[in-house]
Each structure stands twice: as C-alpha cells, then as structure tokens.
C-alpha cells in the first residue's frame, strides 16, 4: 500500500482497534510522509495507538526529530509525554534543550520522567567535539536538580536512571559521588532501590 492510503486508513479508522492496526501498518511503512500523522496519533488518547506511533517514529530516527520538536504539543500533556519518549529514544542531541526544559519544568510527571531518562542516553558523537563537554555538563546539572528536588518519586527515579546512563559515557566519578550523596536523602524505597542497583552496575 502507498503511504497515502496508509495515512488515510489511520484517519478513517472507526474503532479503537481498527485505529491501532492502522497505526501499526503506517509505522511499518517507514515512510517520511507518515511522520506528521504519527505525531498526530500521539494526541488521540489511545495508548495502544500511541505505542505503535512511537515505535514507528523511533525506527525512522533522526529524520523525525525536527518535526517532533516543531509539533510538540504545549497543551496536551498526554501527547507531549509520548513525543518526549520518542525523542528520548531517538536520542539525537538536537533535542537537548527540549529535554532539559521538560525534565526540569514540565508540570506533567509523565513528561518529566520520560525526559529525565532520555537525557542520559543522548548520542553525544552527533555533536561537534567542542560542544560535547558543555552539553554533558548541562545535562548533569539538570539531572542533579531533578534527582534532588522533584516532588514525585518516579521522576527522581528516572533522573537516577538518566545519571547512571550518562556516567557510562562521561563525568563518571562526579556522578558516582553525587549518587552516593543522594542515597542519604532519598526517602522513597523504590528510588533508593534504584540507586542501589546503579551502584551494583557501576562496580
């Protein structure tokens, strides 16, 4: 099927089930023309369809990044959470500013946690060498703030996951020290368990 007819099938889907199937088909087409439609689906409040759309966007990769950034929905936090998750998984550093802003300041915890995790995984080699260190430091500062101050356990948890990933690529010793400090103040049992897992992984 042409991408045009696949897009049409998504637009005309008349039941949630049909929609999910149509979105998987469109995702599978891996056509760049599908990108705006896949992004639209993130706002349909249908988790099954959104998962399918995210998978398609992630597989398309870097080419979807500028459009995801352009179309990021400022009003629908559900849609924004899915888009941030897609950007996080594509991990192109062009999303750095959006992800730091989202991790630190978005009012929706699903957005903050997706961004915090994604910040740790960015593909630094896509940046010019002279820009890498500054960007990594910015990520470190953001994640430290989030891990210390966010009021939601799951966002602090996600920041720990982000810091652990970042430490695999850069700033390792500094992150290790920070996480050990953090363990003394973290009250949530699950977040504390995640810290312990990070220590085990680092050994």
């Amino acid at each position, binding site marked *: 099927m042409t991408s045009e007819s696949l897009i049409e099938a998504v637009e005309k889907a008349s039941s949630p089930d049909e929609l999910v199937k149509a979105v998987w088909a469109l995702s599978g087409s891996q056509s760049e023309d599908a990108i705006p439609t896949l992004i639209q689906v993130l706002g349909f409040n249908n988790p099954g369809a959104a998962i399918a759309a995210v998978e398609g966007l992630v597989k398309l990769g870097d080419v979807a990044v500028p459009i995801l950034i352009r179309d990021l929905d400022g009003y629908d936090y559900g849609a924004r959470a899915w888009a941030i998750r897609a950007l996080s998984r594509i991990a192109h550093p062009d999303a750095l500013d959006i992800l730091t802003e989202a991790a630190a300041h978005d009012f929706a915890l699903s957005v903050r946690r997706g961004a*915090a995790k994604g910040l740790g995984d960015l593909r630094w080699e896509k940046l010019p060498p002279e820009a890498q260190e500054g960007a990594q430091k910015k990520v470190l500062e953001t994640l430290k703030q989030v891990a210390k101050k966010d009021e939601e356990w*799951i966002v602090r948890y996600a920041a720990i996951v982000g810091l652990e990933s970042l430490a695999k690529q850069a700033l390792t010793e500094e992150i290790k020290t920070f996480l050990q400090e953090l363990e003394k103040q973290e009250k949530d*049992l*699950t977040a504390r*368990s995640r810290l312990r897992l990070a220590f085990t992984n680092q050994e």
Partner: protein
Amino acid sequence: MTAYNAETAIAHLNQTEDLSLRYYAAWWLGKFRITDSAAMTALLNALEDEADRSPDGGYPLRRNAARALGKLGNPQAVPSLIENLNCSDYYVREASAQALEEIGDSRAISPLLALLEGGVEAAKPMPGKPHLVQPYEAVIEALGSLGATIAIAQIQPFLDHPVEKVQFAAARALYQLTKEEKYGMRLVEGLKAEKLPLRRSALMDLGATDYLDAGSAIAQTPAENSLKLIALKGLLENHLQHQDQPLSPEAVQLLTLMDSLL
C-alpha cells in the same frame, strides 16, 4: 488574601455556616496529611455530620472526612469509622472501609466481615443505583490488607461474583491471605480483560500483593505506563517489606522493567 493553611482548614471545618467550605476543608486536611489533634477532632466531628446532605440522602461531608481520616492513619479514628460502616450512605460505607484498610487496625476485621453477610447471594445490585448493596470491593480488599485469615472462607465465593472487579478484589485478598499462586494467576489473567478500566483494576490489585511472577505481564499490559509503574512499585516494596537489604534478582528484574516504562 491569606494563604490557605491547616489553621484555615480546621476553622472552616469547625464552622457550620458554609457547607462547601467544610467539604473542601475535610478533603484538604487529608490531602496534605495534617496530623495534629485539632485536625483529628474536627474530622471526627465531621464524620458525625448531619447537616450536609445530598439530594438522594447521602452525606458528602462524611465521605470526605472518612477519606481524610484514612490518609492520616491515626487509630483514634477506628471506632467512628467502624460505626460508619453502617451509615445509610453507600459511599460513606465504602470510604470508611477504605480508611480502615489504610489505618490497618485489626479491630475493623469483624465489623467488615459483617458486611459480607449473606455471601454472593446477597451481593446484588442496589435497585436504581450504579453500585451493589454493599461496597464489596473495598470491604474484601480491606480484609486482605488487614491479614484477616479468618475471612478466607467467606471471601472465596466472591471469586465467582458476576462483577469482575469484585472477583479481582477477592483474588487479591486471597493471595494476600494464603500466598497461593492460583490467586496471583487469576489477577494476571485479569490483565487481559478487554476493557481498560478492568485492566487498570487488575494492575492496582497486583500492586497490592508481592506476586513477583506478575512483573513482565504488568509491563506488557496495554494501559498507562504511570499505572504500570505504580503496580510494579507496589510489588517491589511488598517484596522488600520495607527492609534495607541487598537487592534480590527478582528486585533487579522489577527495577529493570520499571526502567523500560519511563
């Protein structure tokens, strides 16, 4: 305008002129877990309120007061909450059962058990209402959390109650009370329900247990990641039982699943 604080909330709850201020204040005290004795007294008073009545005879203020008292977790509220298990308002009975579960006081066991009288036979829909004659789900869940092994035989038949959420509540409680795998598996089965609200319900029920085998099924359920994360957190913390100990392989597996859902 001064900021809304505990003092304001207590004052609002203690006055009787403006019912809507009382209603909000009761909710607020629970939400922000204001545990001082003036708040307790005001809430206990509100739990006996006769003034705030809804058109169908309900007691909106009592509902909020019961919910708040559950969040405060003070056993001082147990006798009044037990009394309200017999309130004419279904939603007060439901909120009271949930509050008694949260407080975790075993004095609530036999009064809760009394609401199961007549068994599944009696557990019919309330004519003209969107609920059953008693808040069975809340009652059965509370009995499970309170460790009421004495209730096992009475809960068992509810596995076959026509309302699926009640079946799940029974499976959850029976798992908590017996640790038998078949009850955990019944909940995992529930994750495959066609309707999203039912899958959500099964998720929350699993999160109340330590049935660790449910981990990957939870992660794969078509439902919001937020709920799946809460369910996995519940499993993990019930597994750790609030002890600091080295992480077991099962705990690591749960954490890894959580990572994938961020």
